[in-house]
């Protein structure tokens, strides 16, 4: 009894400590970003352009850039991942070796450092996009989104395969025994049963795409302007933080980073909450 109590208290303390870290980060950013509010800059943050020489520190272009790149990455990555996961599912029926191989590849892909993708992108993808667009540097939203799609796909693939694997065996056997072909099994039973998992995977991947720094930093071009098309160069919030931090440590310009941090914090919280709600609703529906 006593040992159990000690373990429980320890675990609770650990949980509280890690939860308070994220609250503390929030408080820290709010505190350090406060001078912006004091100088009446907060409203301007989201409307003004980013012109530090003129004392204008708007992060709106970066918010737009982040949303463009993350959404496009999801648009490219989602069909790819769903198809890949479906292929894993279809091949499990016949011989396990091929589907295990496919899964292993996706697992290894999650382990490759993002900078490697960025590096490869600069040498392979960017020149190709440059030629294809017929001008410019090739460092643009399209390049970043394509590359980011590759980065976030393994997360989605593994998430999708896991939710496919949770479909009860009896259901699969029922379809088999009724003369269902593997593709019919996937379409009529596995996919409808996995909608929740697919939704969660999508939202998580979107969160990852928004949080990724290096890809955008390396191949999106980092221009501080509201992008008008996918061939425009853009800067994401994360890349912005990285770039400004590299140059400066104590100025109003630097202070705006806390606003960037808060916006990212807010977006991430929103995605995590969405996943939580999706998960809970799915559980409630299960008898």
């Amino acid at each position, binding site marked *: 009894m006593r040992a159990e109590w000690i373990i429980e208290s320890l675990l609770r303390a650990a949980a509280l400590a890690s939860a308070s870290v994220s609250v503390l980060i929030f408080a820290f950013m709010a505190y350090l970003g406060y001078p912006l509010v004091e100088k009446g800059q907060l409203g301007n943050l989201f409307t003004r352009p980013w012109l530090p020489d003129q004392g204008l520190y708007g992060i709106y272009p970066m918010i737009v850039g982040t949303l463009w790149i993350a959404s496009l990455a999801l648009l490219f990555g989602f069909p790819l991942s769903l198809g890949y996961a479906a292929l894993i599912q279809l091949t499990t*029926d016949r011989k396990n070796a091929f589907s295990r191989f496919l899964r292993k590849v996706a697992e290894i892909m999650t382990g490759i450092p993002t900078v490697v993708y960025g590096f490869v992108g600069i040498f392979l993808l960017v020149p190709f996009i440059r030629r294809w667009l017929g001008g410019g540097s090739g460092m643009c939203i399209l390049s970043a989104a394509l590359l980011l799609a590759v980065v976030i796909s393994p997360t989605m693939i593994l998430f999708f395969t896991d939710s496919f694997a949770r479909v009860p065996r009896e259901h699969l056997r029922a379809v*088999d*025994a*009724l*003369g269902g072909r593997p593709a019919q099994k996937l379409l009529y039973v596995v996919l*409808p049963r996995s909608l929740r998992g697919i939704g969660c995977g999508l939202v998580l991947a979107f969160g990852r795409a928004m949080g990724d720094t290096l890809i955008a930093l390396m191949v999106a071009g980092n221009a501080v302007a509201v992008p008008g098309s996918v061939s425009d160069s853009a800067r994401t919030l994360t890349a912005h933080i990285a770039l400004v931090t590299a140059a400066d440590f104590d100025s109003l310009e630097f202070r705006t980073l806390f606003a960037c941090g808060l916006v990212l914090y807010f977006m991430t919280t929103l995605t995590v909450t969405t996943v939580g709600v999706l998960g809970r609703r799915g559980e409630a529906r299960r008898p």
Partner: protein
Amino acid sequence: MNRTPPQTERPKITVEHLSFFYGGFRVLDDISTSFGEHRITAIVGPSGKGKSTLLTVFNRLWEDIPGVRMSGRVRIRFGDRWEDIYAPSCDLPALRRRVGMVFQTPNPLPMSIAKNVAFPLRLAGRRKPGEIARRVENALRAAFLWEEVKDRLDADATQLSGGQQQRLCIARALVLEPEVLLLDEPTSSLDTAAAGVIENLLIHLKRRCTILMVSHYLDQVHRVADRITELADGRLVERAA
């Protein structure tokens, strides 16, 4: 030891030198027999000795299990043609539409009652709503379930009782009008009353198809089966029905 069945019945399924292995373990040992048309054959015997495996030989459902091996020849007579179901030319989905199977635990799919029964028709590519509704009703009537569900065909199938779910699974197997029906301990998850309904149903169903059934309950087997055969040490031994 394999006694040939009485001459009066017409064989529906013949098995020649059937052996079955799980890894190095021989579950079925050189079985040769035949099963009569429109008969209920019960396979009894101790658990874990391959009775369920023997059933899956007739719809080839064992083939997805890794590490198993089969040898021998299994033929089923569809109409007047004998078909070797392990021949490369055999169309597996078509075979499984003509050899239905019902499992130990009812396994309705997570959809409505009507959709569950219509599901095999959908798999077979039948799309005419009128035909589907007619065949669903016929199958539910044949499975003694129509009167209980006719007012709630759109309700979720998982809301049915265990016995109703099992009859739903029988209806689902019947909707394609299979010539052979395989039943793997169809009443073992049900109470006596629900099991009684299904026993009664099986006796009616033998007019439509040839039934092979695995069961633990000897009294049940004696009530419904025309032939009782025991699987012991990989071989079939006939018992008095």
